[in-house]
């Protein structure tokens, strides 16, 4: 089973082109959707999750036409939205049970066992009787994934799940995600490159509603191998470097900017070659690279 997105477009009534001719084939396994805030990731995710109409194009999962057969898709869908709340005065156990009913697990004893198992799996079992109002961000996200897994989904959509989580929480969450079987199409949207690097077998970068790049992270990185150079510079010199080199990223280290540039040849001038990173790929795409990396995939 494969999720195929074909020429999907969506323009909001205020004129924002959220999706422009998006075409993606997403196989089973983890798929990372990378892009900056406002790139159109959530719109794409919501459209796949039957929560939004597209203007044109199609989405199919196996033989389900997602845009038409919404209810069929929902039966095999797990969805964790980017932002969600929980009823504060209800315990995790009760709410998870409620969602299980929503999703069609109407046999009481089966449901009970399932809820128990998922609470264990998400490591919430010992706090299952506590009200959700007191949950930390990480616990909340794990609860979110527990609810998304309830119907043993064939398609799991996780929209920016690690935003706002501390590193420990993030790790817990990834462990949870990585345990998911190979039988599921998992789409993970994020603007954090690390997430994709650690988890995904396939990925795409989108920005301004367009797919900039898609492929296997390792292959994509391989294409940049030997072309990335790094240098620590003075703040005032940044503009000069930007004019002279193709700067793909800049970050501060001990108060001074470290820049990465892309170059086919060694620029010397104090630059040292570094091992290409997915982050470099990402930034090179987002910040107007002249090199066409699309060919790599």
């Amino acid at each position, binding site marked *: 089973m494969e999720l195929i997105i074909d020429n999907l477009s969506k323009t909001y009534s205020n004129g924002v082109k959220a999706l422009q001719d998006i075409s993606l084939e997403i196989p089973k396994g983890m798929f990372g959707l990378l892009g900056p805030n406002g790139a159109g990731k959530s719109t794409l995710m*919501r459209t796949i*999750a*039957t*929560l*939004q*109409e597209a203007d044109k194009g199609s989405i199919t999962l196996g033989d389900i036409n997602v845009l*038409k057969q*919404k*209810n069929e898709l*929902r*039966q095999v*869908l797990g*969805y*964790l*939205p980017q*932002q*969600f*709340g*929980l*009823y*504060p*005065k*209800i315990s995790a156990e009760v709410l998870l049970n*409620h*969602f299980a*009913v*929503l*999703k*069609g*697990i*109407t*046999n009481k004893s*089966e*449901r009970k*066992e*399932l809820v128990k*198992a*998922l609470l*264990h*799996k998400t*490591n*919430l*079992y*010992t*706090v299952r009787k*506590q*009200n959700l109002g*007191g*949950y*930390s961000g990480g*616990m909340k996200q794990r609860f*979110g994934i527990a*609810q998304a*897994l309830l*119907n*043993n989904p064939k398609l799991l959509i996780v929209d920016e799940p690690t935003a706002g989580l501390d590193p420990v929480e993030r790790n817990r969450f990834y462990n949870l995600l990585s345990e998911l079987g190979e039988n599921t199409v998992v789409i993970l949207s994020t603007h954090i490159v690390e997430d994709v690097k650690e988890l995904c077998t396939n990925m795409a970068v989108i920005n301004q509603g367009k797919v900039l790049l898609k492929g296997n992270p390792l292959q994509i990185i391989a294409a940049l191998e030997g072309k990335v150079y790094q240098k620590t510079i003075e703040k005032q010199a940044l503009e000069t470097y930007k004019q002279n080199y193709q700067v793909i990223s800049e970050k501060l280290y001990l108060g001074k900017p470290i820049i990465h540039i892309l170059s086919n040849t060694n620029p010397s001038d104090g630059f040292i070659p570094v091992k290409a990173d997915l982050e470099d790929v990402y930034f090179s795409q987002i910040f107007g690279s002249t090199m066409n990396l699309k060919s790599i995939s």
Partner: protein
Amino acid sequence: MMWYEIFKFELSYRLKRPDTYIFFAFLVLFSMVGVDFVFQGIDLGAVKKNSPLVIAKTMGAITGIFMILASMIMGVSVLRDFEYNIESLMFVNPIKKRDYLLGRFLGSFTVLLFVFSGVFLGMVLGESMPWHEADDFHPFSLLAYLKPFVIVTLPILFFGASLFFVTGALSRNLVVVYTQGVVFFVIFMLTKAITNEWLQAILDPFSLTTITLLSESWTITERSILSIPFNGILLYNKLFWMALGLLTLYIGYCKFEFNVIKTTRFKKKKNPVLESQTVADYPSEIPEFKLHYDIKSKWTQLIHFSWFYFVSICKQPSFWAIAICGMVIILINSVSLGTVYGVDSYPATYFIVEELQETSGYFFVIILVFYSGELIWKERTAQLNLIYDATPMSGFINLAGKYLGLLLIYAVLIISLIISGIIFQTSNGYYNYDLQVYFYGFFLEIFPLLALVTLFAFFVQVITNQKFVGILVVLLFLILNIAFVLFGFNHDLYIFGGSSLAKYSDMNGYGHFLKPYLIVKSYWFLFGMILLLIASVISVRGTETNLIKRLKAAKHRMSKPIMKLGLITFTSLLILGSYIFYNTNILNEYWTNSKQITFRVAYENTLKQFENLPQPKIVAVNLNLALYPTSRDYFAEGVYTLKNTTDTVIEEIHIQKLIEGNVALESVTFEGGALRDTQYATFDYYPYKLTQPLQSGDSIQMNFKQTYTTKGFEQGGSNTNMVYNGTFFNNNDFPTLGYNRKYELQDDRDRNAYKLPPRSNKARRDDPSALVNAQSGGDSDGIRFEIVMSTDKNQLAIAPGNLVKKWTTNNRNYFHYKMDVEMINFYSMVSAQYEVKKDTWVSTTDAASKPIDLEIYYHKEHTYNLDRMMKSMKASLDYYSTQFSPYQYQQIRIFEFPRYAEFAQSFPGTVPFSEAIGFVLDIDDETDVDMAFYVTAHELAHQWFGMQVEAANVQGRLMVLESLSQYAAMMVLKQHYSEAKVQQFLELQKERYLEGKRRESGKEPSLALVENQKYVYYAKGAINMYELQKQIGEKNVNLALKSFINDWNTTNGKLKMATDRYATTEDLLGYFRRVTPDHQQDIITDLFEKVTSLEF
């Protein structure tokens, strides 16, 4: 000026919000009908609708009703920062607490003033609305509106604003904001329970009681023109509430903490959820399970959802706050139940239920509009909607679950109310809890309507997709629905929810009213189901909120089962609708208001020409009446003997059939034959041209057959006379002679609109043509009466006369009554399941007289006051027969009839007594006047004043009949109880008189010329007759009455025979004058011929 910046910000924020304008528009619209709404059903009389008093009261009431808007505006002001989680951003800024609170308060208060200026504007606009008559208004004066607005509305708005602002800021809880408006209303109701008038006037936040107290002594003209003086009690009232407002603000200022986390909250969170520990040995396998999408699983889901949403509301303190408020109010309000003449009734369950129904309405509406909004928005408020929407649940099942959850909430509230009712009964030492009546009263009468309106509210919430707008639309709809009925559009097929169920009666239960009620409710429920189905396919699912797009998407969302369900529902709706239409409009006649008016106008225009046509008099009536209570039918055969008492030859006899669809006059034949003229058949009016004209002094027999056939059911209540248990009707249902004034259009304004002359209630006292009639219509000067009645085996049938024979054949009871003396042409026919209490009375003065049978026919549970009634009959007979004249019949029968009507009445030898009065009064001899005793005495007095002596149908007639009966009954009361009890009774009469005088739209007449003014002939009549007796002595008054009866007795009075007319007050006063010493003669004039004000 930091506060000014905050003030400006608050103002501009509010002015951009649509709800500000929606609230404003709502108040404008509502206030346009404000006066009509607040004073609905109250006759303002000569007081104009824009008199300052009326305006002030209306403004007070509207402000009170919509205090909840104030709560929505003021309460959210500070709360908003917490709602949107920007409090941390706000509070880190270098703003002083004072500036922040002041700016916010003044900003929202300004908005509040703007919104409530809608009341002012609306009322001003309302004056020129087309449904208002210019006659009802003074010339327009802006000041008349402005002054009450400033005096009455502004101060209380200030208090409300302070209170709501502070509670909102301190509690930081939206639900509290919702609820406080309700709590405020309850506090207002609580002040009603205070007995100290002055204290009550001070404490009434809306100044309604204050204004009543303030204007208590005003005359009718003053009421109409005086502007409200802002001093005295009103000033204190306003000062009190404004001071309280300032105090609230001060407390709020001190208590408000200018930080992010509420201290109390923080303490509560002492045990935050700890990170959970990994449980080492858990099975890592996800167990096997199946997903179900079949009907059975939908059913499981539905039950689960209902319970889930029910529990979620139950957990909200706001719900319990409302419920407890409701219970408290009921306990306060139930203090006096079924009060008749100042005496409370036993707290019988149906009284409690009616009281509960009345007062709980407000609470049910609040719960309905708020929680329907809450439930529709529940997932979105918690931001859980995307998760919900991406699951394969059916939108319909989810919505239906919310619906059923809310219904369960109603059930909980109802059960709490029932419990408080039972507590009230128990605390009053009444243990006859009629759980069935409780159950029916709520689950049959209230619950179905709530269920229907909730469906509508859900629909509106889904369509508007704006919580507050939805709430207002629902409220507006409820008001419009009532307004429609008031304007005469009342057919069950288009008035949402249909009409309400008739009163519960201990005797008749819900009778035949129940079945059509349930059918109509089912019809509307099907309609509601369709609304719910539509709502489920256009509700917001996902991110699209635009209504048009949702409508377009609906056809994709309509699944096959939903489609099927919709189709079945729609077909059933059509079938049931047609069935109702068939019953109400085809089997029976449906009369709209306008049709009725046109009919009455046409009746008068066409037939008025016959009003003075000489007609014979009925001198004998012989009836054979078969009643079938179970099917609500009767069959009657009758013979009238008609005598020409005029000087002319009568060629035509005009017969008027009762105008009612169920009644058919099957045949009318005259001795010697007659030709029927059918040209007035539309009016059921048939002139018969006699083959042999009736000569002066001759008699003729008229035979008729009349049936009453119940066919299906009628629109609205239908006939309350023909019922399963407690059938009660009188001779006016049988054919009458000639033109009948009762079918004329009564309302002067309507008459004017149709160019009919004003209709006088009573002829002048010197009008010779009216002096010969004792009743309107005047078909008779006295009859011989005989009747054979039959009814079901378990019922007894009663009519005037001696019971000649009684037998049972074919499972039916037969009764043959015959009156051995002549009586007036006024008799009732009754049938019900009765218990009978019997006794006899023997005259002590007239040893030769036969014993009189005393009988009380009562509903088997109503035994409370039988002894009092029996005692009263004996005491009355003793007094009247010695003081006035001997009793003319051989029996007196009191019988109970269902409480659809609330009166007691006198027919020859028979006294029907409504279930609602007398029988269930809880009389405390220490504190109360024994009204069961008194009313019986009053009705018995009518056996003299009304049966022995009749009064001409002119001005003053009702003084002769009613004031004299009041006098007679007071004398019996005095004799058997005490002077003090009579004084207590007179106090009540004074109140009644003043109340009536206040409502009088015309001029108060003297007693001697009284027309239909009850407050004059009942209340003032009692007071003045008592005064007369005090001045000239009881003996003298009785002496005068004795001669009056003797001379004007209908059958053998010598003056009656000599003059051939009936007595008037002029005659009566003559007798009074004769027994009054010369120096006291003025008393008669003062008491009866002048309109003197009472001295207190």
